[in-house]
């Protein structure tokens, strides 16, 4: 530690540390390299003695055949290959263990992402007060993450034991294929722990505002990289279970670990989960800040946590907006991999679970808008815009109704007869993709419009082209709405495959609103006349609760979509390779799945509230001094937060 007192040595030490962590990041390449070497050796040996080759279940063309390097997938028998705890359903126990580990895993992956961005934004600030606020916020969230990290590790242990105790046959098969990856996974976990602790405990020592601070930020970058690689590894196992590759149809491993990792659904899952985690992280931090805002006793604390909840919400929504598009890509790949899987999800057995998901997504967007409307209550001058809120609400609700209308209706036979068929002649039109795409794009565009109003509600543009700019923005949003609705209606008159393609111009329209609308709006507000300072801390309790709702909706959506992703394998542990022969190889009724998901969400939030409480327990020092708080309003609100 003494070396840290010598600035030169400290810099060298920090640089070496960074290099070591960076080098250790090469760990994942070891099994791939080792696998390749092994394959070469076996291929060479194959010239001398005959080796058995078999056809890959997924990879076609070159590399279609591989050297059989493992036993076939076992035919599991109940009860020999399955464990039980009394009369409890083993699947449900595993489901809970898995979901809780995933929640906390996502949390400890998502928070460092959030912290990295916040630390970077803080470093970019010219205003020292704002820079400190961002830095303090990042530091505080890292502290929360540290507690959650140990819970994640404990839950990971519980998950492994649950697998070993209840599904030994299945876990044995999976670990035979992925054994090198599993060990690297564990080693990377150790590396992540070390990096995390260095990052957190070195915060103050490395906060020199110069070289050391940059090294500190780089450690954060490496921490996030390790976290993402860890997630990719875990994703490869679930992707293998859904769309196996690198094995033959008997389930025999063909020697190339990369093929078993790089399956059809691996990357779509990776991208979807990165964005999902980032949105989840923003949501949970916003909930934490709201919790502290509601519990705050002093105006300073209220102001700080009000600001923090806003910044976190902003980060969450920024990642939420592209999430549906990543979801579309994932679904497209699922359809491409197996048509039956796609139909089971979207039109068949599990279609109603998508309605649950739609409900959650609608809640996410409506609660975001509601939060922004409430947030405008603390902005002098916002009164001018109050009258528009109800029309925006109307648009959101109409879109929600279209978004929620199911294609497959739940009804009694008498209702079916009264309706004259399985599809309703009017609302049946809302059950198809054309209506759904239209509804979600309108909802996102409305959210962007709401954000633009939020940006300007306590300001009056003074640029010369203000009138022209307003007209442009009006035309942009009106034109976008017309285009989205027109494309939606046009979709009913063209083939299904072309109709799917229409989602691209619809999405482009929405993204144009987002990027062009927000950019023009921001440019118009340059040197704008302020109608008053933001009264941080005066957020209505309803706004704080809206952020709670937002975060809970995130977690419920994760639960329901995780259930969906897992259920789509139906009676397979590994799709079409390893059959589930336990008594629980059936698809749960919706009510049961809903209850278990709700219980998982409740359990996670109970544990998370404990983590929040721990965070608050040690945070006795005031986050900002009175002078600093006074400076918040005066300071130019950072670009990322306003």
């Amino acid at each position: 530690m003494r070396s840290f007192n010598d600035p030169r040595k400290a810099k060298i030490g920090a640089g070496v540390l960074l290099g070591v962590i960076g080098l250790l990041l090469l760990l994942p390449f070891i099994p791939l390299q080792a696998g390749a070497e092994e394959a070469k050796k076996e291929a060479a040996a194959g010239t001398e003695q005959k080796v058995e080759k078999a056809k890959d279940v997924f990879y076609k063309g070159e590399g279609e055949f591989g050297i059989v390097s493992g036993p076939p997938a076992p035919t599991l028998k109940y009860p020999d290959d399955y464990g039980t705890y009394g009369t409890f359903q083993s699947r449900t126990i595993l489901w809970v263990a898995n979901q809780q580990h995933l929640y906390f895993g996502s949390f400890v992956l998502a928070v460092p992402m959030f912290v990295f961005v916040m630390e970077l934004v803080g470093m970019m600030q010219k205003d020292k007060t704002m820079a400190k606020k961002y830095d303090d916020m990042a530091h505080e969230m890292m502290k929360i993450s540290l507690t959650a990290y140990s819970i994640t590790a404990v839950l990971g242990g519980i998950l492994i034991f649950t697998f070993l105790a209840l599904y030994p046959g299945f876990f044995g098969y999976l670990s035979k294929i992925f054994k090198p990856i599993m060990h690297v996974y564990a080693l990377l976990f150790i590396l992540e722990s070390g990096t995390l602790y260095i990052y957190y405990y070195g915060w103050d020592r490395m906060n020199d505002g110069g070289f050391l601070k940059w090294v500190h930020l780089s450690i954060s970058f490496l921490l996030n990289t390790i976290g993402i690689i860890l997630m990719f590894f875990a994703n490869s196992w679930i992707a293998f279970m859904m769309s196996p590759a690198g094995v033959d149809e008997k389930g025999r491993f063909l020697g190339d670990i990369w093929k078993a990792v790089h399956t059809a659904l691996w990357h779509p899952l990776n991208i979807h989960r990165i964005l999902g985690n980032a949105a989840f992280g923003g949501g949970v931090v916003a909930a934490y800040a709201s919790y502290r805002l509601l519990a705050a006793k002093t105006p300073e604390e209220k102001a700080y946590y009000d600001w923090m909840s806003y910044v976190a919400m902003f980060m969450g929504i920024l990642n939420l907006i592209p999430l549906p598009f990543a979801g579309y890509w994932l679904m497209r790949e699922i359809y491409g991999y197996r048509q039956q899987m796609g139909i089971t999800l979207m039109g068949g057995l599990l279609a109603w679970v998508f309605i649950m998901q739609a409900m959650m997504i609608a809640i996410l967007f409506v609660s975001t808008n509601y939060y922004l409307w409430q947030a405008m209550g603390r902005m002098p001058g916002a009164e001018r815009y109050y009258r528009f809120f109800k029309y925006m609400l109307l648009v959101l609700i109409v879109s929600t109704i279209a978004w929620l209308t199911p294609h497959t209706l739940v009804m009694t036979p008498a209702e079916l007869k009264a309706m004259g068929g399985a599809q309703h002649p009017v609302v049946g039109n809302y059950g198809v993709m054309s209506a759904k795409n239209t509804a979600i794009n309108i909802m996102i565009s409305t959210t962007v419009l709401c954000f633009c109003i939020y940006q300007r509600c306590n300001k009056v543009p003074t640029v010369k082209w203000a009138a022209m700019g307003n007209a442009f923005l009006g035309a942009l949003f009106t034109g976008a709405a017309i285009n989205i609705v027109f494309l939606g209606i046009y979709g009913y008159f063209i083939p299904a495959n072309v109709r799917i393609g229409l989602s691209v111009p619809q999405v482009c329209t929405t993204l144009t609103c987002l990027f062009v609308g927000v950019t023009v709006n921001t440019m118009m507000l340059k040197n704008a006349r302020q109608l008053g300072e933001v009264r941080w801390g005066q957020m209505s309790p309803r706004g704080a609760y809206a952020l709670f709702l937002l975060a809970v909706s995130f977690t419920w959506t994760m639960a329901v979509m995780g259930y969906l992703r897992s259920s789509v394998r139906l009676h397979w542990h590994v799709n079409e390779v390893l059959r589930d022969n336990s008594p629980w190889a059936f698809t749960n009724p919706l009510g049961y799945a809903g209850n278990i998901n709700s219980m998982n969400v409740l359990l996670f939030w109970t544990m998370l509230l404990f983590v929040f409480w721990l965070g608050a327990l040690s945070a006795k020092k005031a986050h900002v001094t009175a002078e600093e708080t006074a400076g918040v309003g005066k300071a130019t609100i950072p670009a990322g937060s306003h």
Partner: protein
Amino acid sequence: MLKQRATSLTLQVLFAVLALPMVVWAGGGAGFIDAGKFALLIQMGVGIGIIILAWIIKDKMGIPLPKIIQAPIIWVAAYIVFRFVLQPPIPFSLLAIYMAVVTIACFLYVSLSQPSWEEFTSPIKFMLQEDSGKAKMSRYFTFAAIPLLLAYGTYNKMLPKFDEPIELRTVHPAPPASINVHDKVLNLQTAENPFRIDDSGKYLKVGLESVYHGKNPFAADAPKFLQSVRDGGGVFFGTAGCFFCHGDNLDGRGPFAFAFNPIPANFADPGTIAQLQETFVFWRVAKGGPGLSREAFPWASAMPPWEKHLTTNEMWQVILFEYWHTGFFPRTWD
């Protein structure tokens, strides 16, 4: 003066609400707009009418409507639209979803801004906190009404019902990866309709068959595609007699249709064959109700397994005919 103006404005609104669908109806006739779209227009008209009416009462006539009154009006108006205006009636499950959304919307509406929330909550606070006679009366009334409403709800819930149970039928169950028809294995992911060919005999990409829509399949010089459509029509109306159930307009309303529960699929609906691959439809035609997959519980389908009566070619031709007749295109995954 105000009354006259109000009457005039109300009449104008009613006229506007009714005129649009009437004009469309009268102008295009039944061939231009079907009953479903007509009902949709009526519904939209009523919705817009309610909004205009509220705007006239509140902003033009200056009659104040407190938020605590506005919210139930919106709720009841939405209920009327979804329950009575929307025809044919929607199932209760859907009505419940819609009304839950409307209930949330009402809450959001009254709490959009702080002034609005205060306006909404002030009568409630008055009722709960004040000591005046009026407040006391409304308090007694409310506290008597809440348990009575709950009791009524409980009574309704406990009341024995003799309705058939609710069914969540999987309308589009996932097909198997491959099927065996007439001793040949057909991969449903990759198989193609052999009659989907252009004039030169090459495979016709989905969507390009629109050139044959509206053309006469009985013409002497009908191209190969239309000849297959004609043969498929022969199967539909002749060999197999599909029209007895699926209707001569392919709308699921044939003479036998209402003897079945559920009634046969309506191919004219954009939610049926237009959503499916041709191979999916082939699977359903060939294997019928008995060949439904496990997830298609409760296997409620009277569709016969047509592989026992038709050749493979006849089944592909009838599928070609169904798409041609309805003007829809099958789904493809590219």
